[in-house]
């Protein structure tokens, strides 16, 4: 396509007269806004406006039914900072993020590197690792609740086969979060796997050939070619993964309902409960924004680390 394009511009007189794409044309002023308008309308309605209005709501005591709505200043925020349930669900969310991020990055990397070796059965590997990502949270929650069923579940069957005692995984505060993490790793690893696979395929094969000629073995090639080339991808995947893990809600809500005794309740679930079951919209909005502020801080820190490692 680039060849035809070049023949288009090699006609000097025309190109010189119009000098396209460089001068601002008066019709573009309108055209630009017309092109952006449909997106902009929805963008303002469903992102910018709620974001601003939410800040206002967080300073009121409005309820889901619309009752109340008096301005209460910083009271909601003050309450949030004293609210042990909020801190606990924040802690749970952070704990989940820590537990889930490492396997979701490391195992995905291992999968992608192994698949990229060109072993037979490519479609089967891709299907196995990626398919769970296509399943709705409802589906994976049901499957894993069934696997972790204390009496009939496959998890305990495996445990007993290996000589351990079965346990009530999701009903025991000590293991409930672990169960959620296992289900989540199984469910979402395919996404990171694909990102790694795409990155691996972008490494020019000539580099391996050159290394091979120089007598570098497979592990040597992995450490000196593959790993450094994957560093930017890894940083990016880490960033995306941390953000995704922080937004934990679906699978917890459906697997444990946040239990036992709040041991797995995430911050988003707490926002939901305060807003939609306790009907305290204003307070719920305030908690959302505490969480939002944390996400922004974490993203900025990560972006900074990312930029440093990129240079």
């Amino acid at each position: 396509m680039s060849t035809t394009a070049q023949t288009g511009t090699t006609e000097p007189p025309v190109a010189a007269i119009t000098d396209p794409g460089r001068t601002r044309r008066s019709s573009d002023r309108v055209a630009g806004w017309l092109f952006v308008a449909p997106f902009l309308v929805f963008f303002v309605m469903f992102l910018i406006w709620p974001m601003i209005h939410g800040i206002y709501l967080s300073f009121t005591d409005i309820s889901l039914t619309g009752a109340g709505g008096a301005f209460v200043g910083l009271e909601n925020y003050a309450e949030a900072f004293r609210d042990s349930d909020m801190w606990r669900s924040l802690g749970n969310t952070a704990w989940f993020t820590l537990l889930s991020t490492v396997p979701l990055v490391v195992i995905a990397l291992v999968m992608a590197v192994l698949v990229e070796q060109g072993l037979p059965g490519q479609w089967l590997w891709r299907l196995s690792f990626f398919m769970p990502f296509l399943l709705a949270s409802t589906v994976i929650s049901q499957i894993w609740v069934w696997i972790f069923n204390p009496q009939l579940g496959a998890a305990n069957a495996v445990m007993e086969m290996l000589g351990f005692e079965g346990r009530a995984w999701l009903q025991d505060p000590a293991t409930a979060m672990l169960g959620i993490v296992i289900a989540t790793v199984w469910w979402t690893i395919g996404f990171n796997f694909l990102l790694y696979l795409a990155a691996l395929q972008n490494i020019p094969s000539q580099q391996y050939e050159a290394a091979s000629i120089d007598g570098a073995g497979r592990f040597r090639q992995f450490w000196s070619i593959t790993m450094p080339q994957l560093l930017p991808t890894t940083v990016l995947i880490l960033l995306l993964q941390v953000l995704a893990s922080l937004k934990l809600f679906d699978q917890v809500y459906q697997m444990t309902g946040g239990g036992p005794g709040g041991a797995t309740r995430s911050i988003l679930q707490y926002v939901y409960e305060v807003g939609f079951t306790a009907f305290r919209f204003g307070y719920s909005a305030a908690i959302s924004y505490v969480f939002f502020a944390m996400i922004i801080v974490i993203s900025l820190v990560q972006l900074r680390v990312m930029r440093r490692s990129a240079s």
Partner: protein
Amino acid sequence: MSAAAPAAPAAAGIDRRGRGPSRTVGPGRVVAFVVLVLMAVAWLLPFLWAVDTALKTEEDAASPDASWIPANGFTLDSFREVLAVGNVPIWAWNSLLTSVLITAITVAISALAAYAFARIDFKGRGWLYAVVIASIMVPGQVLIIPLYYEMLALRLVDTYWGLILPQVIAPAMVFILKKFFDQVPIELEDAARIDGAGRARIFWSVVLPLSRPILASVAIFVFIGAWNNFLWPFLVINDTALMTLPVGLQTVISAYGIVYSQVMAQAVLAALPLIVVFLLFQRQIIKGVATSGFGGT
């Protein structure tokens, strides 16, 4: 993708297809294969176990000595039951309808905006694009309270549009499309302009045809997200007849989640459409997710 089908192998052991390290059959390769098989089995088993359970009679499914081959044989009864009494077909239709609309609207408005950001020099472009990019960092989930409040005010709670509209904003997709449009050779557009084409014509008949792969990528990515979205549909829809598959199934489970074989039959039924689509379009989906995935979710 076409990682430059390289010249003839320069050294023994380098595969012509040329991706990754050399491909001689050595102990390392055997180990890699075994590990891969173990991992694939581990990843497939949970789903296969769900399918197996769904194909059992309830008596076998709820029997403490779980086995792959049930004592009373396999049966499709659970599937029949679920399809007969449940709202699964209605929910599947709602999921399909809303996901298709979300995808179509998202791709259309994002592509138009992205093109303007890439190629049209209009006043305010710089700061507007900066705002859109910054908004990638805003997780939709933290806006559920004000969004729900807005839906109440617009009387869109319990409507398809209330479900759809808040999901069509995808700044990350605008970012991805803009990066693509940046690389479309400007000479092509210039040629069309010389022929007298206006912006709309150029976009429609020059740029869009070149952008099919990236548009497909974005569409696939958006569709998967919409099909599986849980939180927003769960909040904004209370009417059983308007529920999407993930939300509808969840209500059934919490209502009577004790018939294990039926629960698994529902799960398998809900999973089936996307698995079939994946098997049919494996290559495009993998490429689509890999391309659009970096835009963040």
